[in-house]
């Protein structure tokens, strides 16, 4: 059965259709939630809250966007709410391009991303690097670069202007790149 039909049935209270919709999107939402939270328990909790919002509000879903886009918007809000309750970051800590980008002696990374999925040491480095990034920047990086939403879609999801998204994205990329550069011992000599 196609998703539009499932949504119509769910909006009429069909619990089986709701369960089908959950099943169709749970992996994507859990994975995204983990990428923001970097913790499996928090990711599961955020996923549960996201689908609870879907179940409660499915009748209000008008179909202007895809259900997946709507869910990304909801999970983004839940991730930000969670992050704000435990934030150790200041969002203005990446304001200086001169500190983020030092153009001298950029190392040639002799490393490929192919093994990221199996390499636990690398996963730890990736987790630690992104946890240093303020959640507002992390979410923009994940939506735009990792999930592949356009700059405009990302701006709409996080309720920012397009220039603000570009600014956060460029700082997030530079920050993460620098963190990994340090952890891979490529820091300039």
């Amino acid at each position, binding site marked *: 059965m196609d998703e539009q039909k499932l949504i119509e049935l769910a909006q009429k209270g069909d*619990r*089986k259709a*709701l*369960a089908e919709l*959950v*099943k169709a999107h*749970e*992996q994507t939402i*859990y*994975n995204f939630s*983990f*990428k923001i939270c970097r913790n*499996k328990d928090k*990711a*599961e909790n955020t*996923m*549960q809250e996201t*689908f*609870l919002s879907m*179940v409660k509000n499915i009748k209000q879903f008008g179909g202007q966007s895809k259900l997946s886009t709507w869910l990304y918007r909801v999970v983004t809000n839940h991730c930000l709410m969670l992050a704000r309750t435990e934030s150790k970051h200041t969002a203005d800590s990446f304001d200086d*391009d001169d500190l983020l*980008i030092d*153009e*001298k*002696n*950029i*190392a*040639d*990374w002799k*490393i*490929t*991303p*192919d093994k*990221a*999925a199996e390499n636990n040491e*690398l*996963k730890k480095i*990736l987790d630690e690097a*992104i946890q240093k990034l303020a959640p507002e920047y992390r979410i923009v*990086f*994940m939506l735009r*670069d*990792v999930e592949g939403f356009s*700059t405009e879609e990302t701006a709409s999801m996080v309720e920012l202007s397009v220039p603000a998204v*570009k600014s956060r*994205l*460029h700082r997030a*990329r*530079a920050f*993460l*790149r620098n963190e*990994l*550069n340090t952890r891979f011992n*490529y820091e300039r000599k």
Partner: protein
Amino acid sequence: MNENKITVKSGLPSCKDVMVHLCDNLGEELNSPKCVEIKSHLEKCDNCQHYFNSVETTIQFYKKYNVELSNDAHNRLIEFLGLKE
């Protein structure tokens, strides 16, 4: 020091211009006159190529790092939502 760093002439982008602009535009169309100059710079500048490649690699690392939802977590979700048959 980087021997390949190009000399900055008036009106031409510096390495830093390239890096900032690449960060703004990775994955987007690069057809404007400024972007054509930037691409030209990138082709000649090892420093900027290394930077560009390392940013791309950073993105790829995070793209490829995914987690699987376990059956237990799926079951807890369905129960949490009251959708268990």
